[in-house]
């Protein structure tokens, strides 16, 4: 393009770019010089050494071990883990919900498709922040206090402090290694056989995981002492033992999946309608059953249309998980940009680290999306 430009336009081509670059550089330079001057007059210094300092506060919910002795780096990791936890559960739930509602939307049954339409129109048009507050401040607030908790079979309890259910842990005293080796070996064998017989990675994964689960049950049946089961029980103010899903997490996950599910349902409907009726009819004319026609002809084509916007939707969910601050769920923004920033006074470092983390996760999700997209693309011969 450059070579064909007449001299005057070439001058404009270069001139406008150089001028813009100069302006941008000057602005960035000015901002940085302001920053340096401000840091200097306020005697502030930059550095990430604070990450090794002891944090000295507690975090209400964490899937990783945490105590008041942990460092600010641990706070960062725990916040990140909590963000990823919400994102992973939210993505899974939103996808399942969205695909089901999307299929209901194109159902021949009008009652079902209209119900799905109402769901989509209602939840898509309400602000997500309001939905999170609604679930947290209205729905979960209606639950009873721990001492009056709903009790299901003396094992499952539901109160305004969360849903408690039994959990298991591995007894460290028990000699695990031979068992683990045996189960893993079995799982590998089954996975390989599964792959050889059906040539499908899915079948291999399912049979491998199945072997691990069944192996676990067999082990538990033979050696019950290997696994400690902890059942929740009322203990003073709250339940102890077992595993608890806190209302903050629940409200966030429910609101995120219901909201994003509505968008995914529309994507699914759009994709199915885009494939067109002709494809389905052709498949049926070839003698395929309805189920096979969907599985072999319609669905793969849908997937191709669906994957890029679906990935985008999941990225939105990741970013929206930062609304956790509205209900006090300790996600990355809440514990790191909220609490840690105030306890260390390192605003610039903490904010830049957090932003970089979000950008990095976003890039990873985009890269995965690109891989999936490539694998569903039509291979042109």
């Amino acid at each position, binding site marked *: 393009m450059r070579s064909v430009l007449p001299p005057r336009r070439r001058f404009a081509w270069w001139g406008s770019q150089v001028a813009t670059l100069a302006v941008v550089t000057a602005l960035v330079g000015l901002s940085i010089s302001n920053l340096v001057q401000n840091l200097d007059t*306020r005697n*502030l210094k930059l550095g990430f050494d604070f990450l090794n300092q002891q944090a000295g506060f507690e975090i*209400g919910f964490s899937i990783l071990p945490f105590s008041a002795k942990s460092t600010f780096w641990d706070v960062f990791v725990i916040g990140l883990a909590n963000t990823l936890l919400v994102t992973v559960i939210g993505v899974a739930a939103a996808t399942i919900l969205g695909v089901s509602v999307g299929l209901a939307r194109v159902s021949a049954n009008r009652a079902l498709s209209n119900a799905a339409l109402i769901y989509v129109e209602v939840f898509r048009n309400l602000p997500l922040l309001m939905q999170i507050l609604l679930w947290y401040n209205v729905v979960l*607030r209606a639950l009873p206090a721990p001492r009056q908790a709903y009790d299901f079979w003396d094992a499952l309890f539901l109160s305004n402090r969360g849903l408690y259910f039994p959990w298991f842990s591995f007894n460290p005293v028990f000699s695990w290694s031979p068992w683990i080796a045996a189960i893993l070996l079995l799982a590998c064998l089954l996975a390989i056989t599964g792959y050889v017989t059906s040539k499908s990675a899915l079948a291999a994964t399912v049979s491998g995981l199945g072997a691990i689960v069944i192996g676990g049950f067999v082990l538990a049946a033979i050696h019950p002492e290997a696994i400690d089961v902890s059942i929740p029980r009322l203990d003073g103010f709250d339940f102890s033992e077992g595993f608890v899903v806190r209302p903050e997490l629940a409200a966030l996950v429910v609101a995120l999946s219901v909201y994003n599910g509505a968008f995914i349902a529309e994507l699914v409907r759009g994709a199915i309608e885009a494939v067109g009726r002709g494809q389905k009819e052709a498949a049926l004319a070839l003698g395929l059953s309805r189920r096979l026609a969907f599985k072999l002809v319609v669905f793969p084509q849908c997937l191709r249309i669906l994957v890029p916007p679906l990935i985008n939707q999941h990225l939105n969910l990741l970013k929206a998980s930062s609304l956790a601050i509205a209900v006090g769920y300790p996600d990355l923004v809440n514990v790191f940009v909220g609490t840690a920033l*105030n306890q260390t*006074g390192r605003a610039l470092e903490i904010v830049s680290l957090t932003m970089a983390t979000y950008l990095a996760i976003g890039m990873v999700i985009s890269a995965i999306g690109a891989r999936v997209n490539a694998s569903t693309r039509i291979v042109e011969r």
Partner: protein
Amino acid sequence: MTEFKKMGLALLAWALLITPGIALADQGSTVKAISARGELLCGVTTGKGTGFSTLDDKGVWNGMEVDFCRAIAVALLGDASKVKFAPLEFKSVIASLQSGAIDVAARQVTWTFTRDSEFNLDWAGIYLYDGQAFIASKAIGVDSALDLNGATVCVTSGSTNELNISDYFRSHEMKFVPIVGDSIEQNAANLEAGRCDVYTNDLSTLVSLKSTMAKPDNWVILPEVISKEPLGPVVRQEDPQFSDIVRWTLNVLIAAEELGVNKESVIQMVETSNNPEVQRLLGKSGEMGAKLGLANDWVVKVISAVGNYGEIFDRNLGKDSLIKMPRGASALWTNGGLLYPLPYR
């Protein structure tokens, strides 16, 4: 020619953007910046801190923090209305102060070693000698903080409360689950809904909260005070002149109470008082104001605008308010409290 025009425009835009930046870049000091702006940027509690900072139906700010902001504005600019209030949740106070979004935080911020040294902030003094306590529903039947093992505790995000409670429970070998909220309202809502068993904050905040609850008698403040929370106005460690002005504004408010100078009597006392201390304070003798770069009668203006420390306290937190908080440690030293004005000479 158009291309040359375009380039010319780009350069002009560049010049326009850069010039004000350079012109303002040398306004390093806070006092200069405030004078140039004609307004003080004062950080206060988000409009729901009854007694400290509230925004009423008519859009007027009230409260102890607010009065203190006004006092500084009078000292510096001679006008109590030249303040822009920045309602801040606790977690954005320190970052806002460091980044320069506000000039001074009159909001309740505890004076601690780390904040003073590492964050490079300067406390101008202490306007409230406070301590951290707990509020709980009477229904849960707890009489002492020592009975709180296993409790769920509501606490403000990023505060010293968050650290103190961790220390307290650890030193008493007890466990707790923190529920972190950004604002007093969020924590109070969680407490009232039973999401947490107790809410911990500075005693003054809890007393103020209790007075605004639907049924104050259903709530009890536990007797233990687990920390020292000296609260005071805080500035950046940037402009010694500005820290001095804030420090002495607080100090003259306290001195005025000690000397019996109040909003009503101050104008009269300029003429009638024979007490040399009062004469110095009110600018009748000496050139005290000039030493801070202020008008000589600055104290008269401050006291006429907001009253002395005792009046501010009584109006917002004390006997003339809804809260009816006792002076406690924040009484004058002559009344057995800790307020001890520095000599104004």
